[in-house]
C-alpha cells in the first residue's frame, strides 16, 4: 500500500514492520533505496528479511533477498523462529534469493578490470521472475570482503540501486557500523545510497541492552526524529515502540465511571473520567491495592470486563486480600469479568512487558485496566526506558478510550515521592495520594485527590480507615499539617479557629444567579 504523508512528499510504501511505519510517517520512500546501518548484532538481517516477509504476508508484495554474507539455507533456518516460511514462499514464487555469499574454494583471482554486471543481471532476473516490489540486500560489507576495497565496487552498487529504482522496487540495503556513535557505515556505503538512512542500535545502558531505531534522513519526505526503542519477539520479528509518535488524538470523554467507592467518587467530583489514566501513589501498606481492587470490582459488578496486571503479589495473595475486603475475584473471574495476570517484573525486558500488556488488552478487550504496581517495573530498566514505557503504555490505553489505574509505591514511608510520581505525573490525568499521618502518637491513613484533569475535586486531605468491607473515607484532617511532605505539625484548637476566621473572610459571597 502506498501512502502520501505530505502533498510534496515522495510517496511511501508501508513496510508493515510493526510500529516502524508510524515513526517513518507512512513507510519507506517507494522505489528508492534505504540504507539500514548498524553494529554487529543490531538486527540488520532481521530487518531486511522482515521487510520482505511483511510485504508478502500483509501487503501481497513479493520480494528478492540478495545475500552477501549468510548462505540462503542459514537465512531460511534462522528466520523460521519468526514464523516466516521462506522455503514455502520460494516454492510459490513469492520470494527469491540471489546468493552472493562467499563460496568455498580459493579466493577470487583478478586479471584486469571487471564490473558486477553478472550480479546486476541476476538481481534484475530475480525481480522479474517473482514480480518483486521489494528487494533486500544484506549486507553490502560482504561484497567488499569478497572483492576487496575499491571505488569500482561502490560505483557498481550505485548502479544496482539505480537499476532497482528503474524496476520500481523499494530496496533496503544493510551495512555495518563499527560503533553505535561513529560514522554511518563502513566502506563509505552511505555515499552512494544516501537518499535514506536508518540506524539500528544495540547499546548497553545501565547493564541492560537497549535496542533503538533512528531514521537519520529521508530525502524529500518527512519522518519522526530521534531514537525509538524496539524489541525482537519470537514468532513476530521486530516491533518498534512508537511511544509519543502516537498522536493523542482520541476524543476526551465527559462520561464518568465510579471509582468503586462512593466517598472517593465524591472527592473526585463524581468519579473518574471514562478515558482517563489515574495514578494512585503512596508508601507500602497504605491501601493502593485496595483502591485498585474496588475500582475493578465496581466495573465487574456492573458487567464490565476488567483486566489486572500484578507485578508485586501472587494470584493467591491478591485473591485472598480481595476476599478480605469482600471482593470475590475467583467468582468474577469464572464469569469472565475479570482477568488477573501476575508476572515478575524481572521476567522480561520492559519493551516485552509493554508488548505483553498490549497483547492482553487486545485479546481481552477490557473496559477497565489496572496495573499494580507500575513502580515495580522501575527496577528492570533505565530511567529513560521506564519513562518511554509509561508513555507508550498510557498512549495505548488512552487510544482505546478506557480507564487505566496505575499504582506506585513511594520509597519513603512518610511523605516523599517515587520515580513514577516524579516522572509520569504529567502524563496521568488524575493523581490520588495515600499517606501515613502521625497524629498525637497514633498513625492514621490519609487520602488526597491531587489532580483531576478537567474537573473540580475535593481539596481536603481526608482520613480513611480499612475494614472487611473495604475503604471508608472520613472527614478532613484539621489539626495536622505537613501531611504531603511527611513533616507533620500539630496545631491547637485556638490556632485552628483563627485559620477558620481567615478562610471565611477570604471566601467571596455566593453571587446571585439570574433565573431567566
Amino acid at each position, binding site marked *: 500500500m502506498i501512502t502520501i504523508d505530505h502533498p510534496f512528499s515522495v510517496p511511501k510504501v508501508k513496510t508493515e514492520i510493526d510500529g516502524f511505519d508510524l515513526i517513518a510517517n507512512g513507510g519507506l520512500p517507494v522505489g528508492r533505496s534505504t540504507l539500514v546501518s548498524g553494529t554487529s548484532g543490531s538486527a540488520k538481517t532481521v530487518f531486511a528479511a522482515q521487510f520482505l516477509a511483511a510485504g508478502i504476508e500483509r501487503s501481497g508484495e513479493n520480494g528478492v533477498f540478495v545475500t552477501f554474507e549468510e548462505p540462503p539455507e542459514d537465512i531460511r533456518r534462522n528466520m523460521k523462529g519468526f514464523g516466516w516460511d521462506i522455503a514455502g514462499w520460494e516454492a510459490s514464487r513469492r520470494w527469491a534469493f540471489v546468493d552472493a555469499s562467499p563460496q568455498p574454494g580459493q579466493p577470487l583471482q583478478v*586479471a584486469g578490470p*571487471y564490473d558486477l*554486471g*553478472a550480479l546486476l*543481471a541476476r538481481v534484475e532476473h530475480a525481480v522479474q521472475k517473482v514480480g518483486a516490489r521489494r528487494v533486500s540486500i544484506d549486507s553490502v560489507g560482504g561484497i567488499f570482503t*569478497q*572483492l576487496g576495497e575499491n571505488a569500482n565496487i561502490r560505483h557498481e552498487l550505485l548502479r544496482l540501486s539505480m537499476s532497482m529504482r528503474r524496476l520500481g522496487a523499494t530496496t533496503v540495503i544493510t551495512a555495518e557500523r563499527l560503533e553505535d556513535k561513529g560514522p554511518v557505515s563502513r566502506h563509505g556505503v552511505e555515499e552512494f545510497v544516501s537518499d535514506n538512512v536508518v540506524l539500528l542500535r544495540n547499546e548497553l545502558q545501565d547493564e541492560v541492552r537497549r535496542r533503538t531505531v533512528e531514521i537519520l534522513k529521508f530525502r524529500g519526505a518527512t519522518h519522526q526524529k530521534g531514537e525509538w526503542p524496539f524489541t525482537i519477539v519470537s514468532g513476530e520479528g521486530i516491533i518498534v515502540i512508537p511511544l509519543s509518535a502516537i498522536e493523542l488524538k482520541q476524543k476526551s470523554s465527559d462520561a464518568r465511571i465510579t471509582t468503586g467507592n462512593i466517598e472517593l467518587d465524591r472527592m473526585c467530583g463524581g468519579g473518574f473520567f471514562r478515558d482517563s489514566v489515574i495514578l494512585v501513589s503512596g508508601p507500602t501498606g497504605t491501601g493502593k491495592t485496595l483502591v485498585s481492587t474496588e475500582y475493578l470490582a465496581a466495573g465487574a459488578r456492573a458487567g464490565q470486563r476488567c483486566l489486572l496486571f500484578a507485578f508485586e503479589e501472587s494470584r493467591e495473595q491478591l485473591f485472598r486480600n480481595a476476599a478480605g475486603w469482600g471482593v470475590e475475584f475467583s467468582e468474577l473471574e469464572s464469569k469472565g469479568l475479570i482477568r488477573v495476570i501476575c508476572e515478575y517484573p524481572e521476567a522480561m525486558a520492559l519493551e516485552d512487558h509493554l508488548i505483553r500488556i498490549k497483547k492482553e488488552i487486545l485479546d481481552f478487550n477490557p473496559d477497565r485496566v489496572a496495573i499494580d504496581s507500575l513502580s515495580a517495573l522501575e527496577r528492570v530498566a533505565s530511567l529513560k526506558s521506564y519513562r518511554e514505557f509509561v508513555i507508550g503504555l498510557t498512549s495505548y490505553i488512552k487510544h482505546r478510550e478506557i480507564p487505566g489505574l496505575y499504582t506506585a509505591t513511594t520509597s519513603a514511608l512518610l511523605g516523599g515521592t517515587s520515580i513514577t510520581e516524579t516522572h509520569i505525573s504529567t502524563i496521568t490525568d488524575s493523581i490520588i495520594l495515600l499517606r501515613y499521618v502521625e497524629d498525637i502518637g497514633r498513625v492514621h491513613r490519609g487520602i488526597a485527590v491531587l489532580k483531576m484533569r478537567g474537573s473540580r475535586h475535593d481539596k481536603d486531605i481526608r482520613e480513611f480507615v480499612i475494614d472487611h468491607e473495604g475503604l471508608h473515607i472520613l472527614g478532613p484532617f484539621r489539626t495536622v499539617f505537613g501531611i504531603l511532605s511527611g513533616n507533620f505539625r500539630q496545631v491547637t484548637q485556638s490556632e485552628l479557629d483563627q485559620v477558620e476566621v481567615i478562610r471565611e473572610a477570604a471566601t467571596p459571597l455566593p453571587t446571585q444567579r439570574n433565573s431567566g
Partner: protein
Amino acid sequence: MKYLIKLYVTGQTPRSMRAIDNLRRICEEELREEYELVVIDVLERPQLAEDEKILATPTVVKELPLPIRRIIGDLSDSERVLLGLDLRPYEA
C-alpha cells in the same frame, strides 16, 4: 586431456569483447586445439549466472580438468590468467 572453459560476459561491451579476444588468444597459444570455450552472456542467460553464482563480469571458469578455477577481469594480464586458471602449456 581437453580443457572446458566458460566465459561469462555482460552484453557486447568493449570490455566483453576484449575479454573474449584475450581468452581466445591465450587458449590458442597455450592449449592449441585441446580446449572448448563457451561464452555466456549473462543478460541473455541470467539463470546460468545464478546457478553458478557469478558476481563479476567478465568471469572465466575452468571447469575441466578439475580442480575448478575462477578468475575475473578482462584478462589483459596474461600471466595472471595462466597462473589463476592453472593452465599449463600444451606439450606435444
